[in-house]
């Protein structure tokens, strides 16, 4: 007995990606469309980040750029890097940026004052010059480049991820090991830099210190007796009694002590058992 779905799944898992014997890589129309959509989007995100006054807006514009770049990686035959870009960069790093922005620099928008005179103009000229130089030289130098494409590397031997893993653990093993040292150092450094010592605040007193302090002050050590703890009444007007039968002064409620005794005479009589008694027929109304 075998389910058809299991058969299909096992066939799907058993089949290897077929090696493609194509050496020359061509840019398909779909890729060109994707590039002309995502490329301007990435540029718009970068420019938005550059010109946004609010730092949070800058971060969100940068998210746009990074997402577009992730998709560009995917259509450039780097699916693993594309997903890593989306997960690590836009998922982790940019959220870390937003987190720190919310804690630190959200309200500190950029100052308009130029500390160095003419710095912005110089920076803009420098940037434009650099861009023109790079775009011109790259564009002229690489016009006749024939792209080989990754069709073979992405289909044989486990595909893109498998081949990257093989390279990581063979050719780049030493660099990979160094990466672990780097990550540990970064984690330790972040912990040390972000640690807030207890310099400002006095340390909290321990329970033992609190007890000793209380005894040294010479005040009452135990709790104050509550009023009305005896069986006849739980009214605040009823004082607690000490073991010898006398009234505990500390349990007296000062407001009641200050009132005239005649206004409380009913309550006193009830407590003493001489006054009004509960009537079992009272709830029946007038028929009693």
């Amino acid at each position: 007995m075998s389910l058809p779905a299991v058969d299909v799944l096992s066939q799907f898992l058993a089949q290897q990606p077929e090696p493609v014997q194509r050496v020359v890589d061509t840019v398909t129309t779909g890729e060109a469309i994707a590039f002309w959509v995502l490329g301007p989007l990435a540029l718009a995100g970068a420019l938005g980040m550059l010109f946004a006054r609010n730092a949070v807006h800058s971060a969100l514009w940068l998210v746009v750029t990074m997402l577009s770049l992730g998709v560009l990686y995917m259509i450039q035959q780097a699916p693993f890097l594309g997903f890593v870009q989306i997960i690590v960069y836009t998922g982790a790093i940019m959220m870390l940026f937003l987190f720190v922005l919310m804690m630190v620099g959200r309200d500190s928008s950029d100052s308009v004052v130029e500390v160095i005179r003419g710095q912005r103009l110089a920076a803009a000229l420098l940037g434009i010059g650099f861009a023109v130089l790079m775009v011109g030289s790259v564009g002229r130098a690489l016009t006749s480049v024939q792209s080989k494409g990754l069709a073979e590397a992405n289909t044989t031997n486990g595909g893109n991820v498998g081949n990257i893993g093989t390279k990581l653990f063979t050719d780049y093993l030493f660099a990979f090991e160094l990466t672990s040292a780097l990550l540990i150092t970064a984690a330790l450094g972040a912990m040390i830099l972000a640690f807030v010592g207890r310099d400002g605040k006095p340390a909290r007193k321990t329970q033992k210190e609190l007890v000793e302090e209380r005894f040294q002050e010479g005040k009452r050590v135990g709790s104050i007796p509550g009023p009305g703890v005896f069986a006849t009444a739980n009214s605040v007007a009823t004082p607690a009694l000490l073991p010898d039968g006398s009234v505990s002064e500390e349990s007296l409620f000062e407001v009641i002590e200050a009132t005239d005794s005649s206004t409380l005479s009913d309550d006193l009589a009830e407590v003493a058992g001489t006054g009004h008694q509960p009537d079992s027929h009272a709830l029946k109304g007038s028929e009693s």
Partner: protein
Amino acid sequence: MTPTYYLLLSALLFSIGAVGVLVRRNAIVVFMCVELMLNAVNLSLVTFARINGSLDGQVMAFFVMVVAAAEVVVGLAIIMSIFRTRRSASVDDSNLLKY
């Protein structure tokens, strides 16, 4: 269209990031511009991997991502500790060594 176009996009993004580093005054935004420059370089590495037909470029881009992640963690911690002592995230306010 050839893969060279990706290199041009990468160059433009890199220059925008460089201008941002020079112009912006908020330390966190400056840091984001550095991230943009790293991303631009990653795009060119991926493109070179495709042009050369080998995955070495992608592995290098992977390493760049790892280093960028570590850098962000430490850099943001530094920015936070500076903010804690000087109550400001502006790069202009860290001028105690000026004179």
